């Protein structure tokens, strides 16, 4: 029995190391100077002749975790000399913040309403929400794109924010939680003379804090990494969220890439560390159970 534990533990810790390694690599390399990065990782000197493909003719990357001369040069350049990156970071905040705020107000309200209305097609509404939720991004981008044309908000953050704000994931998650909420509590509140609004604000909503937190962590991870929507809607480079532009930094300014990446990673890691339990809860709830 004991050895089984050890085997399982070893495999899990190996997997954990694989999961962590890329992040450790990026963080460690962010203390290298620009010159060292170029000399280590530049893709030059590949033989064009297939016959030369023997290992001593190829300039392979010199993979490393420990900088030869640790320096804060990358961070200095990022924070003091590169307003463009700070601006794109701010663009990301401008997109994510309204989505999170809107979802955490609207989703519990809507789920509460949906739970309580009496209409024979009410399950059809919920089913529609699920279908919309499950569609691939590029597919739901088509209606988003058409509406954005009607409202004349293409090339504006609103074209990304508004659809994300109304994305059905929030209502779905909260409702999954509400189904198991004891009906007696709501009825007791009603007997005490509380109307639907009072019942919501003093009985229901306080009990939804944990699922709303789960929703916020999931939405943050998703929207902080927004790429597809920005590629379609946002034209000018400097208006893009940093999540999109990171792909250009890697080729345009490799000497700074690691610091920019760490910079962009930090908010995601902070949200994760504070909300880790909520993240697992949110994922477990998001699994559809028929």
């Amino acid at each position, binding site marked *: 029995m004991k050895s089984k534990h050890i085997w399982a533990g070893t495999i899990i810790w190996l997997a954990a190391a694989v999961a962590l390694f*890329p992040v450790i690599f990026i963080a460690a390399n962010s203390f290298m100077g620009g010159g060292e990065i170029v000399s280590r990782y530049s893709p030059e000197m590949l033989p064009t002749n297939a016959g030369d493909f023997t290992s001593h003719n190829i300039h392979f990357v010199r993979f490393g975790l420990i900088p030869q001369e640790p320096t804060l040069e990358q961070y200095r350049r990022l924070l003091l000399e590169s307003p463009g990156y700070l601006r794109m970071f701010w663009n990301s905040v401008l997109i994510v913040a309204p989505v999170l705020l809107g979802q955490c107000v609207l989703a519990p309200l809507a789920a509460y309403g949906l739970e309580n209305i009496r209409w024979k097609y009410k399950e059809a509404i919920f089913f529609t929400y699920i279908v919309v939720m499950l569609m691939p991004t590029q597919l*739901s981008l*088509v209606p988003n794109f058409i509406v954005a044309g009607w409202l004349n908000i293409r090339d504006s953050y609103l074209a990304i924010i508004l659809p994300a704000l109304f994305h059905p994931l929030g209502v779905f998650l909260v409702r999954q939680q509400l189904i198991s909420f004891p009906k007696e509590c709501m009825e007791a509140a009603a007997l005490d003379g509380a109307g639907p609004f009072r019942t919501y604000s003093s009985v229901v909503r306080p009990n939804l804090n944990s699922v709303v937190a789960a929703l916020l962590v999931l939405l943050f991870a998703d929207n902080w990494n927004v790429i597809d929507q920005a590629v379609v809607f946002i034209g000018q480079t400097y208006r893009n969220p940093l999540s999109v532009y990171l792909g250009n930094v890697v080729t345009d300014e490799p000497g700074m890439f690691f610091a920019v990446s760490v910079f962009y990673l930090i908010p*995601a890691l902070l949200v*994760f560390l504070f909300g880790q339990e909520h993240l697992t809860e949110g*994922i477990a709830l998001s699994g559809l159970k028929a």
Partner: protein
Amino acid sequence: MKKHTFIYWLFLLPSLLGVALFYVFPFLFSLYYATVDNLGDMRFAGLENFADTLSNPLFQQAAGNTLLFIGLCVPLGMVLALFLSICLQRMGRGRVPATLALLIPLVVPSGSIVYFWKVLFDQNGLLRKLLLQAGFSPEIVFQNSWAMGILVAVFLWKNVSYNIVLFWSGLVWIPKTYYEQMALEGAGAWRQFINVTWVYLSPTTFVVLLMSIVNSFKVFKEIYMLYGPYPSTDIYMLQHYMNNQFQSLSLPQLCSGAYILFLAVSLVLLVLFRLQKRVTDTYQ
């Protein structure tokens, strides 16, 4: 109680209007765009656009690549996640910090680690160097057909932990006594897995399968980060096809493509829902 029921519509209304305005209504309306001709005079063209899209070699290539990718990453991701979630259940101390580490890829922005994948997988990257040193011939090491494999690896790194959590939430519901009963009857680990874990986990397995297919479309982020908007044809996916239609502003092409994709995805989901329901009804 009953007289209040219309008030609850007010709670639902903002969300309902938003979903209708940004998703449902324009999608229904896009059927109109999908059936008018491409020349701008909005003449009804029936199913012409659908036929054009389906016979477009680029669309066929994209559909084939997408299917190949789903066919590779969904089963691999599920097996890996099931294995790891069972290990997680069996391991002794340290489960909490290990889970924390396993979940990190889910929140790491795709772009933040793109350099790592490049250093690992590029033509002069670490992996090829190690393969050469291990004695593989240069012809194998430097052939170009690794792109899809690289993509699967990058995608699995980021998304397997989502499945681990889903499997884990199914595993904790299986009563310990079932295993003890099997152990008393002399069943080994494999028999226990087949007769207890696999059976009682099957409703969860369908959930994971469904979510894996849905999530597999998110690979666009990784491809975009690694290869930009125009990747080579062997990893050109339906997502790229759709994206190029956005850029070319051809609504009939875009919308007919969207409807084809919608029908395909809906069909798969419908079949899975049905199967899941049947399995769930059998075991619960």
